[in-house]
């Protein structure tokens, strides 16, 4: 095999077969995957099957705390566990740009295997396509994930009630800040690590300790995106206390420097949980104990009014709206 991905690697011939064998099969090391059939057979434990899909595009491919592969596995697992599912199996489809170094691909695939093992999931089927140089940004990964939700467990915005408490499992904005930090074009040194990790253990620990109404991992658009989605979907008001939201000092630093708001930066290893008021302390203890962090926090409460809005109580006691994100957070000078 040469040093770089070529169009031949996607054309269904010997080159592709070799790539699949030497990179994917060998690294993922899964008996179902090794059958190389067009479909994977799944044996699911009893419960409600859950399916999720996601696509991953990130620049740079490698960043402190992870890479696109780890992001893909953890992101897919997290989408499943946010519904209370026990994740089982993943599929991944790769779109590779001609010229991508095979070493980079191998590193990423190994990283996926590590992340999958951490979360106890199998990668059982996949696909590979190669596009000409310029037609794709190095690598895109699309996944689907299957899990099983225990019977009777129903989480989601519809269960949110006035009086509920809102919790977050740790500091927000780490991943978004890490990506900005890692991009060469802003001239920063790489001191921020992404929080990219699978949350299956944390979620099941939480569910075992406390009643939970809804959970989400604040990815693209950050905390503000999830809070606004919940406010709209539930028809209630989410009131957040700015002072209670944990943010790392370095993330604050990058935000001050670039004029960004950490509440709009992505996380990839945090969860936001909405729990009944009388479960809040138990939930907090579970998050702190399992996550081994003291900065999990109760950050707010759900109220009846104003409908569909997220209100932020500032450190001064004033209140303002925390609006939904407008798009990608852009560094500013003004």
């Amino acid at each position, binding site marked *: 095999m040469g040093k770089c991905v070529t169009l031949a690697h996607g054309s269904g011939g010997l080159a592709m077969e070799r790539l699949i064998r030497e990179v994917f099969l060998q690294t993922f090391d899964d008996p179902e995957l090794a059958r190389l059939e067009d479909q994977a057979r799944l044996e699911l434990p009893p419960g409600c099957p859950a399916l999720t899909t996601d696509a991953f595009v990130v620049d740079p491919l490698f960043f402190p705390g992870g890479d696109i592969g780890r992001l893909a596995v953890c992101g897919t697992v997290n989408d499943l566990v946010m519904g209370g599912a026990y994740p089982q199996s993943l599929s991944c489809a790769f779109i590779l740009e001609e010229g991508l170094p095979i070493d980079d691909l191998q590193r990423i695939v190994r990283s996926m295997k590590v992340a999958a093992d951490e979360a106890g999931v199998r990668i059982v089927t996949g696909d590979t396509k190669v596009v000409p140089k310029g037609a794709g940004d190095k690598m895109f990964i699309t996944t689907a994930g299957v899990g099983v939700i225990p019977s009777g467990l129903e989480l989601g915005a519809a269960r949110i009630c006035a009086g509920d408490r809102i919790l977050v499992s740790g500091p927000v904005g780490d991943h978004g800040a890490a990506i900005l*930090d890692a991009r060469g074009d802003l*001239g*920063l*040194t790489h*001191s*921020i690590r992404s929080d990219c990790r699978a949350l299956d253990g944390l979620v099941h620990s939480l569910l075992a300790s406390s009643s939970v109404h809804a959970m989400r991992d604040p990815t693209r658009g950050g905390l503000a995106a999830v809070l606004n989605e919940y406010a709209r979907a539930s028809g209630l008001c989410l009131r957040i206390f700015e002072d209670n939201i944990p943010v790392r*000092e*370095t993330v*604050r*630093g*990058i935000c*001050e*420097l670039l*004029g960004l708001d950490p509440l709009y930066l992505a996380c990839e290893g945090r969860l936001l949980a909405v729990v009944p008021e009388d479960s809040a302390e138990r939930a907090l203890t579970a998050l702190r104990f399992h996550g081994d962090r003291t900065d999990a926090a109760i950050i707010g409460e759900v109220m009846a009014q104003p409908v569909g809005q997220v209100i932020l109580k500032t450190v001064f006691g004033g209140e303002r709206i925390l609006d939904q994100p407008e798009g990608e957070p852009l560094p*500013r*000078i*003004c």
Partner: protein
Amino acid sequence: MCLGVPGKILSISDQKRSMAKVDVAGIVREVSLACIVEEGERLEVMVGQWVLIHVGFALSLIDEDEAHLTMKLIAGLESDALYR
């Protein structure tokens, strides 16, 4: 306009181009000191100083005494009975 953030000068990275490495809450960036130095001035004396940074340039040295004075004036209002 004018997003400015305080940072501490860690080291001089390029004397000729007046560039320094500046720390903002653990984030380190190269910043130009051209606005706050005279040509030919040795920059090492600046190490440890705090500056106000805007678009990669230090616009001003932050005056520690003035900062204290401002805070003192604000704190002093608590006991100022002038307008009661």
